[in-house]
């Protein structure tokens, strides 16, 4: 399944509905929604913060047995933004000394099986795989 989303935070509820539709379509448990919502929100908001593309963002969800592939793609991107190169936040520091930022990508890393990035012909694509639990 693929769907296009406006480059705006107001798209987040639609992203969540897209995940719910996908799980229903594949007969997968709704309990998988939290992790998929979280991955998609973090990827999508990173595009809003750091992306350089134009127009809508294309999100794709595909299933191969228990493995879900999530692809977030922006078009006419002036430059690459490779989340696999983003530094890890220092989570050992006391909260009062913590810097803001980097946490979303860290969470994606915690949840994902694999993370791949490609920038080609001004198209910027981040692809994540995530295992899901059994059918509903």
């Amino acid at each position: 399944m693929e769907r296009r989303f406006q480059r705006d935070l107001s798209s987040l509820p639609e992203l969540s509905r897209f995940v719910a539709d996908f799980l229903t379509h594949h007969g997968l448990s709704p309990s998988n929604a939290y992790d998929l919502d979280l991955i998609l929100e973090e990827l999508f908001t990173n595009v809003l913060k750091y992306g350089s593309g134009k127009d809508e963002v294309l999100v794709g969800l595909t299933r191969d047995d228990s493995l879900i592939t999530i692809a977030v793609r922006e078009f006419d991107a002036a430059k690459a933004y490779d989340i696999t190169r983003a530094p890890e936040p220092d989570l050992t520091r006391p909260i009062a000394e913590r810097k803001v930022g980097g946490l979303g990508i860290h969470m994606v890393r915690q949840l994902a099986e694999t993370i791949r990035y490609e920038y080609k012909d001004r198209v910027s694509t981040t692809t994540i795989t995530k295992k899901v639990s059994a059918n509903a």
Partner: protein
Amino acid sequence: MLEIKVEDEGRVTLKGRLDAASASKAREALRPLKGPMALDMGGLEYISSAGIGVVVETYKRLHGEGAGLRVLNLSPGVRAVFRFAGLEQMLAIE
């Protein structure tokens, strides 16, 4: 959709989804409040890194004022995000 209710004695209840779209609403509601504070997340279905950012900001502000922050009634999904953020051992979670 996020609902925030300020109760008596520093208790604040959060319901719904605390995500990047609702983080500013939460930030505006919490910013004027003095500590000590207890964030009751029993009705919170979902939190993302943006929501965690609001909790961390609130903790830092209250800590600077010499007051504490407690976080109550986390669902398993929300607790997992606190764990990913390295906060499970650092915050007072009940």
